């Protein structure tokens, strides 16, 4: 049978990706340019026995998502910059209580209300450092409608596998543009579900490290009763200030992601074999970069592209390895240098890093990148 094909918007594809992953709960508050995610979820969730709630605000929405996810449901929210700022305290709560859930954040201009309909890539640092305290961070940055669909499934898989909130951040262009999408059959893409306890309710502890860095999670409200708090906690979930436990728990929570970076990090290499000038880009900007690489090659410039699909954890060792064999990096991004700074850190002075920054609501066009290539080659 021929596969189902559609011409679809990125945000709609994100919602369908969530449904494919088995999402059964959505709570959100509408905001441009992410609202279509909520629209599709409101129409589709009731059909699969799920629940959609439009909450009073973003804080309430994030809290509802954590609550639903704790009871065993796969839960989603979607928002954009100002909403993401509001959600941050609760995202931190999700990190410390280790609740799997997914946040779709469609990036628009900022800070504050900024430019609601303009594209941006200026929330990537907010994905890592938006909520206070040390915590794990996983952030995915797809570049096409098909990839937004597939990466939303992966976002759920990573959330479930590592028991943590995961962010997926298309920029406004990727969220709003329409392309052809081919839907996979059920079962064609792997769907991961959280590990549930193998012990009896009496023996269960929600943060029992004898099962490894990612302890099994029971459904809250079932026979498994446990305590959930934003305070630093012991393995039974109750608060503690005991130094050795707090230190070990904080380290474990970050380690469960950082030690598995190779499993989480995904990227695409394009024309890197003999490349002398390498563009590091993500989201819609990586599409400008690919166009620019093709143009530059026609003009005899040995250009290549390293496209980030996972932004956090950052592919530090891949960039470091590249830095030892290329002449220069170019980092175009719709912000004032967030990815550029991270790349500079990875490169450790081995090669110069030239940023191209735009925050005027316009995409970085391929000519800008080609011009920079000519300048630095």
């Amino acid at each position, binding site marked *: 049978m021929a596969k189902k094909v559609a011409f679809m918007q990125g945000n709609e594809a994100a919602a369908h990706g969530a449904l494919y992953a088995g999402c059964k709960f959505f709570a959100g508050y509408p905001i441009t340019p992410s609202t279509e995610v909520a629209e599709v979820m409101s129409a589709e969730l009731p059909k699969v026995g799920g629940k959609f709630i439009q909450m009073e605000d973003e804080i309430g929405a994030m809290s509802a998502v954590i609550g639903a996810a704790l009871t065993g449901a796969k839960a989603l929210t979607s928002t954009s910059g100002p909403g993401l700022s509001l959600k941050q305290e609760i995202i931190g709560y999700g990190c410390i209580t280790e609740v799997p859930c997914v946040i779709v954040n469609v990036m628009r201009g900022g800070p504050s209300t900024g430019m609601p*309909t303009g594209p941006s890539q200026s929330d990537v640092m907010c994905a890592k450092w938006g909520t206070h305290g040390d915590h794990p961070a996983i952030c995915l940055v797809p570049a096409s409608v098909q990839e937004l669909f597939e990466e939303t499934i992966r976002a759920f898989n990573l959330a479930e596998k590592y028991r943590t909130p995961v962010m997926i951040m298309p920029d406004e262009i990727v969220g709003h543009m329409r*392309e052809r999408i081919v839907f996979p059959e059920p079962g064609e893409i792997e769907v991961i579900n959280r590990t549930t306890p193998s012990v009896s309710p009496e023996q269960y502890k929600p943060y029992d490290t004898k099962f490894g860095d990612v302890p099994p999670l029971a459904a809250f409200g079932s026979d498994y009763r446990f305590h959930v708090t934003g305070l630093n906690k012991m393995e039974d979930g109750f608060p503690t200030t005991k130094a050795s436990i707090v230190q070990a728990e904080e380290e474990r929570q970050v380690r469960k992601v950082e030690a598995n970076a190779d499993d989480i990090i995904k990227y695409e290499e394009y024309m890197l074999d003999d490349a002398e000038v390498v563009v590091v880009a993500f989201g819609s900007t990586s599409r400008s970069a690919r166009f620019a690489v093709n143009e530059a090659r026609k003009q005899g410039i040995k250009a290549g592209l390293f496209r980030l699909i996972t932004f956090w954890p950052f592919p530090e060792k891949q960039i470091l390895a590249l830095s030892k064999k290329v002449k220069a990096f170019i980092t175009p991004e719709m912000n004032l240098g967030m990815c550029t700074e991270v790349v500079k850190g990875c490169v450790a002075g081995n090669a110069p890093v030239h940023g191209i920054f735009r925050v005027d609501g316009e995409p970085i066009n391929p000519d800008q990148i080609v011009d920079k290539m000519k300048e630095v080659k």
Partner: protein
Amino acid sequence: MAGRYEIRFSGAGGQGLILAGVIMAEAASIYEGIQAVQSQSYGPEARGGASKSEVIISENPIDYPKVTKCDALLALTQEACDKYSHDLKEGGVLLIDSDLIHREPQGNFKVTKFNITNTAKNEIGREIVTNIVALGAMVALTGVVSKENAEKAVLARVPEAFLELNKKAFNLGYEKAMAAKK
């Protein structure tokens, strides 16, 4: 068709230009079986303000989703014409509403003009189908998708009660553009 063909529909917010672009892209992507990407840019206001919808059509995978050198431009308002005609390429197609645009961009373009909005308003009887009249005209002038496939894409997008209305709007736009084409 060799390489990319870049089309921009522009006018004021609320005129249905995004939908016109979406239908053009669907005609290419779903019905012609070639590649298409549609994107848009609009202001925060619900109505008014300059608005554009861009469609890239190609036989090859499309990387950059926005216009680089515009092959064909529709302008339904003076503001949009002033704002979005700067990157229309030499010899490019320019379709403008003759009642609403009085300053044409300077350059060597294939200009076609007719009363697009008033055709919808007076001849079809519903101003709301201005975008479909314009779409029919752009299909005629660009030739990147067949008339049959474009019409299929239009009819797949509209509610049943409005099928005839839109079909009429699409065909009238197509015919008027053919007649007005230099």
